[in-house]
């Protein structure tokens, strides 16, 4: 029994669990906006597109968050530019840009095969994060949470009814850019926890799960934040015992919760839908 408490005795484990929970919570909160905006693919693209920026930042000796963020924004600009100037459909534009950036990132990484810190970018390794990187991740997470605290309602309104935001004196295209920036920033923070490949899971799955459980945005946000924090913590904890991928365990756990909710959710679950359909058929015609 005491064996299960061992991870709590090590400072590095406490740090790993804390930062995973924090990043998981913020990514979970943001995932609500991503899901409602229909930007899962965009989030996937951004989280891959930040990889070359991380490598270049490391080469230049600047904080990787800055390089990653710049790289993500450049990719977003490239996508917006291509969409406006070519008749190619949006999904193809996203596909071309993000694989291009990711490919470049992988190529740059392959030039430095011995650098462990860079290798964790792809697959994540929450137990191996340097203290300086933990501080970066924590700052990003707090800033994203603060920005959502301030502009979260406008952002939500821009997703639900952008014209009403205009009527309230706001600007939907500002909100679009804001969401892009938050997405890129959170992907950077999630990078070292779960890796570039899986970070999109943290940015979509909690929100998708919460969507099935809530009919109000506030409730949805609370549930998604909780799922993100809990799975981040449990994933980091479990990785002490499992000699496996932390990112894999966090995202797989989120997917498992999603499946359970998908089946059993009281109102929007598969079982509830079947019951409601059966009930409607059994009901006598008025």
């Amino acid at each position, binding site marked *: 029994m005491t064996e299960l408490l061992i991870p709590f005795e090590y400072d590095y484990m406490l740090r790993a669990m804390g930062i995973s929970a924090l990043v998981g919570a913020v990514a979970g909160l943001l995932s609500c906006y991503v899901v409602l905006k229909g930007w899962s693919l965009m989030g996937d693209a951004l989280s891959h597109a930040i990889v070359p920026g991380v490598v270049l930042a490391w080469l230049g000796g600047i904080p990787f968050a800055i390089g990653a963020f710049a790289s993500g924004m450049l990719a977003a600009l490239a996508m917006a530019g291509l969409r406006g100037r070519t008749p190619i459909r949006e999904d193809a534009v996203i596909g071309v840009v993000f694989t291009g950036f990711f490919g470049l990132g992988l190529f740059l990484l392959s030039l430095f095969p011995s650098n462990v810190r860079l290798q964790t970018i792809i697959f994540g390794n929450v137990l191996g994060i340097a203290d300086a990187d933990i501080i970066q991740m924590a700052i990003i997470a707090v800033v994203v949470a603060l920005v959502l605290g*301030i*502009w979260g*309602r406008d952002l939500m309104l821009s*997703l639900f009814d952008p014209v*009403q935001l205009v*009527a*309230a*004196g706001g600007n939907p295209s500002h909100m679009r850019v804001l969401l892009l920036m938050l997405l890129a920033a959170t992907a950077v923070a999630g990078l070292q926890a779960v890796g570039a490949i899986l970070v999109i899971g943290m940015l979509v799955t909690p929100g998708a799960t919460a969507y099935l459980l*809530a009919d*109000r945005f506030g409730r949805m946000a609370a549930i998604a934040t909780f799922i993100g924090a809990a799975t981040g913590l449990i994933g980091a904890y479990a990785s002490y015992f499992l000699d496996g991928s932390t990112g894999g365990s966090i995202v797989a756990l989120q997917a498992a919760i999603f499946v359970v909710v998908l089946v059993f959710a009281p109102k929007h679950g598969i079982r509830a839908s079947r019951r409601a359909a059966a009930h409607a058929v059994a009901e006598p015609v008025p």
Partner: protein
Amino acid sequence: MDGALAHPIGTRAGLSVEGVSVAYPNGHLALRDASFTLAPGTVCGLVGVNGSGKSTLFKAIMGLVRPSAGQVRIGGEKVQAALKRNLVAYVPQAEEVDWSFPVGVRDVVMMGRYGHMNILRLPRTADHQAVDAALARVGMADLAERQIGELSGGQRKRVFLARALAQGGELLLLDEPFTGVDVTTEDAIVDLLKQLREEGRIILVSTHNLGSVPTFCDHVVLVNRTVLAAGPTPEVFTGPNLLRAFGGALRQHSLPEQAKAHAPLEAGHVVVLSDDERPLVMAPDGRVLGRLTQDL
């Protein structure tokens, strides 16, 4: 009250659209040199076929597209300034709303108050009171806690009307408000619009439901790539003008002959059959008789 119908230009700031042209980036000129003015206390129907520039005109008034020429003034102000002052409220088309979005009725109505709140959008007592009053006015107070997808078509419309009421403002834009609503709701909406007119607001209603236009619009703006005609309903909403606005798109039923062929009706009876909800009935000389209110 009839003073508002006299359409005085410049006596009090209303809505003025002056020589507005809108070209889209692909070079398509959606609207050319459109002009009309509306005085406070007006219900105006914006009538035209799909693709006539009706919705472009709406967008120009809301500041969603920038006119390549001309200007829109609301309450004497430019559009952006008017929006900042919460002068413009709008009710979207039902098809444009994501009804599965996790928001409740009260949340939606509260969105009308965002422009009155500070940057954090935290509602104060006045905001809650405005929301409650608006919900009561459209008869939705009992359903305030429902998720919007759980409402009927008429109730859905009322929620967004309540949002516009909670916002206040001088100009209310409604996009196809009668699509998919029952007659009771339509009557309730029309009553509400008339009350708002009495309060001195301008209500601009985009609609293709011709039959209902004469029943509640005191002004009409006919649109076909420009403003063809604008003014008091009896002068503008005439057969010849409608034919100009709609061209071949207007389905005409000159039915007496047809009806005679099928015979169960007395000769001389005007009969209108239509798949439209509320068809417009015109006399042979092009005079608008009104709309069909009763099914046979």
